[in-house]
């Protein structure tokens, strides 16, 4: 940032552990999620979805559905109105093919094949069942070791599938010690507590859409394209998301079908996905099979890391889990080689799921690091410190900031890591349960997208800050308001913060752990601009005590501008605006990455996670009994919320290591545990003790706010730490996740 004459005081709200500003709404049931909207004249829609994973729909008993009392319309490919765009057309890297009843083809189990609209939810739901589809099914591919392995053109969004730094094969050949291991991670489904839902109401060629969105502007553009209406005719409201985790980043097929149904029937329509229908058309984390090869010299310094990932996309579209990314920047090795290949399966297209790539890659890399430490007879923390990357190992760039050493130290101290026995199966608790301690390094790139914001100061001394930001639980309503308040020199209770609405300035996407940094930067620049305009008014007005402050500059604080060189001389916003005869004054701002900084620095948040597990020595039941994570992610806007983000991420790590997996029958391609009873996510009792340490880190380069993301890093490191703790408890190295009882008790000694 260029130094200007105007300097704002930061810190009055930023850094404070404020409680959530949306808290009272959320604890009273007054927070309105999409499905809570019941406009007059509402009809209910339900989807019929395919039970086969490949083939075509041969018949639907539309008459039976229509005969059900209350059914108003049945929409199938036969009568679906034309769309303005082909849902199979790819228009950009964030464009994915969707099933909008364009034909009778089935490309995965759970694909929408018809919509039933009815006067009641009960009628719509049963109407959809009465369609009793018949299929012409084809054989399916559902497993990673299928035929036709290929190298994708890109992984994630536009990343190269292969990366080579140095000669990894030579490094491995020259190594004194080496390990090679293969790890499997399963398909996972986001399972936000709030199912995807949409309430759509058309008025001519204008539409109002209540639907959860992590990317309002993307949603508007997609709706505009599909329905052939101008973006300004589309109003999307998403004040609260009941969790997103990536699955609400891009508007999904079912959400568009709800809008389509409303247009066709000419009445408002509500469509809420049943939980079982969330295992198909709204994305998932692809499975991976990863082979890590590590070599070290005699002192434990890495000579090479080779990381190969096999993953899968759908048969009809591309999204390849970028699981190799963590290996590029985490440990200092003179040679690093990563490769990705893939197969195509008869599933819905995978998508971004909390720490896409990083989560899967991290559990494999951290497990391999642990295996290497074991092979060396070294403490796993010491081994990581031995290979600490002072600069980004692959690119050679300096880090914009990196307090990982402090994370290791503070985390280890808090956990009590010192004195951990090297040998596995050497600790028991007072009840005879096996106890194991493991650790892992957490890492996540510090990203920035693009956002806009608007700030207004009003005659009464209050302010308005607005950006179409998304609060999916991370706390945008609070953290962004804190940033806005500081940038406008106002107490947070003096500003009205508006977000979650497509009519507000585009806040980009809530993803990549970049939303606070990006939308926050836009708010800050808008606030600065409006304060600068106000200061200009005052400094150029002879009647103002600030007249002529000029080069000395002014400070904005608590609704007043003060001369920097004499804070006794100041004037309130009200008074400046009143004298200027203005009702309000507006500033606009943008947030975006600084290309120069990105060119010069490698930017990542880091952390260290220490885990204790207890394992029943005979039965193999595992519990993650204690977790300590220490994370450094630049400036902390609100420590209360950041703490919660870390804890939530760490619980996802628990889930990754021990609990969640889609069970797919390879014969049918159907997810057989498409419910929350058997798709296990952790319950309260799974998390008896968890703690996050917010390690101080100052980053002058990453962005204007010094903020790195905190939403996803918690999964990384944690999942591996738990896997390593399971090994330490039992002596059994499980390489297929989540850790299954049968893997643990196989070949166990009788105890």
């Amino acid at each position: 940032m260029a130094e200007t004459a105007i300097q704002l005081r930061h810190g009055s709200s930023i850094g404070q552990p404020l409680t959530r500003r949306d808290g009272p709404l959320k604890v009273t049931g007054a927070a309105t999620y999409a499905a809570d909207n019941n406009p007059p004249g509402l009809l209910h829609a339900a989807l019929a979805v395919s039970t086969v994973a490949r083939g075509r729909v041969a018949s639907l008993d539309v008459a039976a559905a229509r005969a059900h009392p209350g059914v108003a319309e049945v929409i199938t490919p036969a009568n679906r109105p034309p769309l303005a765009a082909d849902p199979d057309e790819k228009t950009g890297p964030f464009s994915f093919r969707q099933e909008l009843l364009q034909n009778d083809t089935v490309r995965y189990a759970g694909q929408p094949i018809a919509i039933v609209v009815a006067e009641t939810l009960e009628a719509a739901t049963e109407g959809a069942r009465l369609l009793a589809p018949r299929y012409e099914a084809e054989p399916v591919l559902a497993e990673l070791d299928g035929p036709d392995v290929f190298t994708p053109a890109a992984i994630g969004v536009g990343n190269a599938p292969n990366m080579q730094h140095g000669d990894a094969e030579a490094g491995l050949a020259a190594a004194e010690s080496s390990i090679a291991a293969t790890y499997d991670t399963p398909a996972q489904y986001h399972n936000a507590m709030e199912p995807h839902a949409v309430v759509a109401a058309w008025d001519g060629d204008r539409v109002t859409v209540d639907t959860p969105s992590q990317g309002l502007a993307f949603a508007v553009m997609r709706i505009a394209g599909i329905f052939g209406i101008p973006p300004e005719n589309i109003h999307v409201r998403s004040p609260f998301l009941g969790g997103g985790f990536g699955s609400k980043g891009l508007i999904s097929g079912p959400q568009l079908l709800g809008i389509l149904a409303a247009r066709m029937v000419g009445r408002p329509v509500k469509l809420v996905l049943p939980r079982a229908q969330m295992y198909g058309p709204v994305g998932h984390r692809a499975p991976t099979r990863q082979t890590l090869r590590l070599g070290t010299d005699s002192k434990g310094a890495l000579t090479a890391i080779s990381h190969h990932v096999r993953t899968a996309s759908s048969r009809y579209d591309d999204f390849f889990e970028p699981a190799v990314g963590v290996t590029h920047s985490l440990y200092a090795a003179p040679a690093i080689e990563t490769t990705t290949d893939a197969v195509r399966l008869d599933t819905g297209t995978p998508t971004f799921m909390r720490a896409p790539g990083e989560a899967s890659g991290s559990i494999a890399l951290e497990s391999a690091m642990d295996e290497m430490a074991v092979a060396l007879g070294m403490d796993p923390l010491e081994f990581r410190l031995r290979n600490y990357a002072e600069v980004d190992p692959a690119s050679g760039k300096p880090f914009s900031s990196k307090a990982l050493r402090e994370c290791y130290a503070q985390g280890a101290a808090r956990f009590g890591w010192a004195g951990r026995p090297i040998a596995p199966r050497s600790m028991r608790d007072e009840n005879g349960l096996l106890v194991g301690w493991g650790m892992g390094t957490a890492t996540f790139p510090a990203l920035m997208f693009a956002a806009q914001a608007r700030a207004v100061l009003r005659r009464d001394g209050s302010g308005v800050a607005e950006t179409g930001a998304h609060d999916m639980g991370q706390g945008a309503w609070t953290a962004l308001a804190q940033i806005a308040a500081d940038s406008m020199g106002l107490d947070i209770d003096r500003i009205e913060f508006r977000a979650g609405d497509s009519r507000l300035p585009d806040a980009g996407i809530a993803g990549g752990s970049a939303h606070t940094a990006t939308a926050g930067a836009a708010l800050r620049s808008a606030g600065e601009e409006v304060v600068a305009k106000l200061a200009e008014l005052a400094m150029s007005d002879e009647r103002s005590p600030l007249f002529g402050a000029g080069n000395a500059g002014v400070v904005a604080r608590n609704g007043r501008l003060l001369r920097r060189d004499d804070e006794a001389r100041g004037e309130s916003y009200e008074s400046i605006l009143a004298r200027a005869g203005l009702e309000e004054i507006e500033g606009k701002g943008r947030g975006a990455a600084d290309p120069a900084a990105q060119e010069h620095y490698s930017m990542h948040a880091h952390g260290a996670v220490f885990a204790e597990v207890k394992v029943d020595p005979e039965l193999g039941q595992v519990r993650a009994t204690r977790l300590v994570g220490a994370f450094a992610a630049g400036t902390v806007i609100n420590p209360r919320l950041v703490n919660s983000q870390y804890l939530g991420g760490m619980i996802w790590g628990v889930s990754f290591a021990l609990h969640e997996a889609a069970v797919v029958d390879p014969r049918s391609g159907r997810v057989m545990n498409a419910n929350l009873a058997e798709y296990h996510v952790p319950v309260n009792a799974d998390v008896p003790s968890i703690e996050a340490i917010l390690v101080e880190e100052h980053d002058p380069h990453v962005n204007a706010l010094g903020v790195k993301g905190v939403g996803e890093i918690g999964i990384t490191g944690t999942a591996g730490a738990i896997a390593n703790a399971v090994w330490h408890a039992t002596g059994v190295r499980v390489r297929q996740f989540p850790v299954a009882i049968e893997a643990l008790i196989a070949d166990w000694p009788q105890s």
Partner: protein
Amino acid sequence: MNRFDYIRPATVAEAVTAASVPGSAFLAAGTNLLDLMKGGVVRPERLVDVSRLPGLDAVEALPDGAFRIGARVRNAELAHDRDFARRFPAVAEALLSGASAQLRNAATAGGNLLQRTRCAYFYDPASACNKREPGAGCDALGGENRLHAVLGWSESCIATHPSDFCVPLAALGAVVEIEGPGGRREVPLEEFHLLPGSTPERESVLSPGELVVALRLPAGADAFAAHSRYVKLRERTSYAFAVVSAAAMLRMEGGTIAEARLALGGVALKPWRAREAEAVLAGARPDAATFRRAAEAALEGAHPSGENGFKIELARRIAARALALAAAGTPERIPALPASPLAPVTGVALHG
């Protein structure tokens, strides 16, 4: 959910008559039935609401020493009934290890007996399931079956019964009281559920219209109170169905086992009483070797129905664990994590 007629009879007799019409189903709390109906797994044409029938809601000690549980007593109510829990602590522990507090507040004792298997292929109307549609075949065979049966299964069906409650009840020789078109009858719980054989669609001895009105624990069943445990292996710490479970009860005399009861859950299409194991235990010393021998006897004849051979050894181990915990004595209070292998061992013999 399909459309249905809803009727709410005032008496047991009316309920039995109403439900004798083909296509009828009894509705109590509905915690399992509504789940199945929403999934299109069952489609009854008529629901006979028995949730308010008089006379089915008592928990009572009978003059002859037996103990009677009305069919619509809620799971939580029973588990927290002090007299009941003191006499039958393993039953209380099993109840509290099942489902969630919300479900336990609603689900009834009778309904618990009649809950359907969690076999994913049974729950998925697009899969072949002989239980759902006789003669359709069994997609669980050769499918995702790591948690399926290892005892008493057939080529027609390899599902398991999901109840926790029924496991200690079977061990204790509970009796099911039934009212039906033909009058009243009683069936030992051990014989109430049917193994699949070639007719997996027949899950219990109930005939159309027959209503479970009560469960009865026979006189003397509370003689095991001091040494009674239920242990349940799960894939998360709570709110999960059993991988395998075991209920063990011992009546100790001096330093030896005078009488033992053992039943397994999660291994078969019914709560599996292990009488061979009980015979091994009777008169033996309560040590690890004895428990292991008993556990091996309990799993005699077990064989995998798919990718689930590990469950056989797990079932042996959990049987031995339950016996060891029972021998250590019933804890004064049910552990914070009921039936969990991870709960601290708090066993203290209440009375000798």
